[in-house]
């Protein structure tokens, strides 16, 4: 895993999930133009847990949004497996998100009018062979909080509902933007455990954005971002368990 051209499979025989080439993103024009991405080349392989590290404004969230088809690049291409996302229509991108991508956000983004189970059902109603909502919630340790509304749950519990919601459709890709950003250390660790667990058991390609360098220990690869570019890529020879992390 690095910024240069790679073969389609790793030595473990993993296929490339995302192939990113020459990606740039410019917000605004003229003097006010902000270059969020300045030419990114990346290959992300299936089943890996990747952590994107970098300071604010380094472009990691922009990359994540473009990977998740929430935003379009200014130039460059992205392939998800054999499909070029940069050539897809708005509608096709929505279908891509629906079928293949799970999102987890810093502020959980739960629907306050729906219970934990219903928040998960929101996603399982969209896809063909989802995990039952109850099962997804048990997976994140919330089997006893099924009928609670978000306002009745703690921050960590809310984020775990968001994790359950993201994984219930058995996505190929899980994109997490600061999933522990709003949580204390102990609660954050529980959420990370859930993420690692899913990465392990379901083989979901997982990309986690964080400011928090200690989280990098649990990743297969750590990509350092700076000024809209990939600065370096590290590979962890041995991954740490989420439970061993703290900050």
């Amino acid at each position, binding site marked *: 895993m690095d910024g240069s051209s790679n073969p389609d499979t790793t030595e473990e025989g993993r296929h490339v999930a995302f192939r990113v080439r020459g990606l740039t993103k410019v917000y605004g024009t003229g003097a006010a133009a902000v270059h969020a991405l300045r030419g990114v080349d990346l290959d992300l392989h299936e089943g890996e847990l990747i952590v994107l590290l970098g300071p604010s404004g380094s472009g990691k*969230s922009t990359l994540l*949004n473009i990977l*998740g088809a*929430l*935003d379009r690049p200014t130039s460059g291409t992205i392939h998800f497996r054999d499909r070029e996302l940069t050539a897809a229509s708005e*509608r096709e991108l*929505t*279908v891509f*998100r*629906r*079928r293949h*991508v799970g*999102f987890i*956000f*810093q*502020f959980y*983004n739960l*629907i*306050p*009018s*729906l*219970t934990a189970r*219903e*928040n998960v*059902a*929101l*996603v399982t*109603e*969209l896809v063909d062979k989802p995990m039952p909502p109850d099962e997804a919630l048990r997976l994140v340790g919330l089997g006893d909080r099924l009928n609670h*509304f*978000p*306002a*009745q749950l703690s921050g960590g519990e809310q984020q775990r509902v968001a994790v359950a*919601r993201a994984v219930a459709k058995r996505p190929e890709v899980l994109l997490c*933007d600061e999933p522990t950003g709003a949580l204390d250390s102990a609660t954050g660790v529980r959420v990370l455990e859930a993420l690692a667990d899913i990465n392990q058991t379901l083989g979901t390609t997982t990309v986690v954005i964080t400011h928090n360098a200690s989280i990098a220990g649990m990743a297969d690869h750590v990509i350092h971002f700076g000024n809209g570019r990939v600065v370096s890529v590290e590979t962890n020879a041995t991954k740490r368990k989420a439970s061993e992390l703290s900050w």
Partner: protein
Amino acid sequence: MNPLNALHPLDLKLARDMWRRRGQVLAIALVIGSAVATLVMALGALCSLYDTREAYYERNRFANVFVSLKRAPDSVAARLHDIPGVAQVDTRIARYVTIDMEGVTEPLRGLALSLAEHNETALNALVLKTGRFPNPERSNEVVVHEAFANANHLVLGSTFSAVMNGRKQRLVVTGIALSPEHIYVIGPGDLVPDDRRYGVFWMDRKVLAGIMGYQGAFNDASLRVLRGASVDDVIARVDTLLARYGATGAYGRDQQISHSFLESEFGQLTSMASVIPPIFLVVSAFLLYTVISRQIETQREEIGLLKAFGYSNADVGWHFIKFALAVAVIGLIVGWLAGAWFGYQITLLYKDYFRFPTLAFSIAPDIFVMSAGLALAVSSSGALIAVQRAVKLTPAVAMAPPQPASYRASLLERSGLLGKLTATGYMIVRHITRFPVRSSMTVIGVALSLGLLISTLQFFDSVTVMIDSFFFRAQRQDVTLRFSELRADSVRAEVVRLPGVVRSELRRVVSVKLTHGPRNRRVVIFGLEPGSQLSQQVDADGHAVTLPPSGLLITKRLAGHLNAHVGDMLDVNVLEGRRAQTRVRVARIIDEYVGLLAYMNRDALNRISGDGAVADGALLQIDPTKEDALFTRVKTMPGLFTISLQSRAYRMFRALLDQNMMTMVWFYVGFAAVIALGVSYNATRITLSERAHELATLRVLGYQKQEVARILVGEVALLALLSVPFGCAVGYGLSRLMIALFSTDLYQLPFGLAASTYGKSTIVILASVAISCAIVAWRIQNLDLVRVLKTRD
């Protein structure tokens, strides 16, 4: 320099807030504008008509008391003048005549009146529009009423013929005039003006007296009563004085036909000004309340900041109230302009059937002041309730993010009535139940607009019932003949021989005063032949009523005026002929909608009036192919007073209603749609504002735009559907109210709300809701998925 920079920063913020919410600002301003427009139009038209009429009456000395009689010598005029309280008396000769207009087969009707000697000082003085008064030396000169002249293209020098006192007279038009007595020109027994078939003309008194055989005598008088004197006393004394001269009972302006039509128009304009604007103003207050509440919700941090800087509660409150006032001002401007334009249009409509020398639409300044006061007061009251919350926020609390919205399963859900819903279904239902006040206000708003529309469209149903009742049941004859004198029953042989007559029934009409306890009313009793086929009455249940051998059938409205019930005995004072007095039992109460009527068996009526077996007219059913032959024959029939055609009356009635009602109905349909649009646009817009975060989340999760739009629209659609039964109920009640307000003694509008009216109205309102939802749903396109995920809700 940008002129905006001169504004206080808070006012600049206000201007920008308004621009950002321009859709909502416009929607609410339109609702306020509708209220203001209705007020300005109705009150403007009312005041314009009223002031014009009063000035006209004053300038041309419109009389206060009117009386018709058989014949009295000129000397009686002095005795009329001696009645205490009488300021001026004018006597004259008035006779209905048959007019023969060249090129018109059917006979027309006219009212020939003698001119006063000095028009400048006379009561009911004419306004000569063109030409001159007749030369007394010439026996064929006439001044004709402008309405008749215009409809028949009569100009100075035109001629027409009239059968006067059995002789055909050729008449020359020397002048065209208007009269305060004939602002609304309507023939006797007609439902609506028919200027082509009925006209008023004036001749020199001596000339007319000569033709009609009234030398030294008169048969009609007008009296002007001194200010402060009792009109009722004068009427009573006139009746006593003129009883022996065959007077049919003096009456005041209230029963003068032109005056009472104007009065009923005033009543309708007043009703319009009092029913419609309150509905709009209440709705706009609610809309402003919801918009400003939402603004305060989204601007918590700014409010906290302002307070932290040292702005007082009053400053902050005033800032939001200014928003409401600014919306009201936009509404006022829209309403004033629209109201002035509608008022101008309605005045043009009035010019077609109210004949004033001049009629200009003008809006008195106090109407502007009043409408402004109302709009500003109601808008700021809506804002005040919302603003209390902003005032209560302490800076620290305001600057902290709001507590996460807490939801719970509603009672409805827990009852299991809803069954199992999808997650998005629950989102819709719980959002509705979490804001019960706002949701019910939306339901009420849409229900009011639906109710308003139903109660407007029901006028068509009502008129259909009225027309059906009047033209196809009560008056089934094709032709009505009226004789100039009472004729013995033997006239039947003569009538039967007229060309084309298929069926004929004799009738008798008698003017009476009916008294029941302290209440009395002057009406006419129609004497019909027993078993009449050409005039049928029905009771309140719609069942045909057989004419009893004796006893009266009276209409519901007349029964109401007299507080009379079936079986009650009424005192009957016959106001003509022998002026008999007797008591008659009320046999049935009937449903009839035109005039205040009573029916009786003709033989029984003849018995109480003491005139023997006589008739004053006939109802005919004719063979339509022989219509022309009939007309030609009756034009020269001696003793015939008038002939009226039912088909023509029907066409005229329909045309007038269609013209007037269509204008009004489009007006109201527009108004109702404005409310529905305003309410639903506002509701959808606020839902979007509250749920933008959630909806963007759904988009991120893979929901397509239309699936997300469905949630947004679903809530308002559900509320709109919920409002349908309430709206129908409001429509029912409002229809009843409108019917009562718009009914007069001249017309009563029957209640006949048709099922299809509910349906049509519902479709219009739901379509308005759909349009506003579509406009807001379009904004789903612009949801910024990325930004929304980076911010806390």
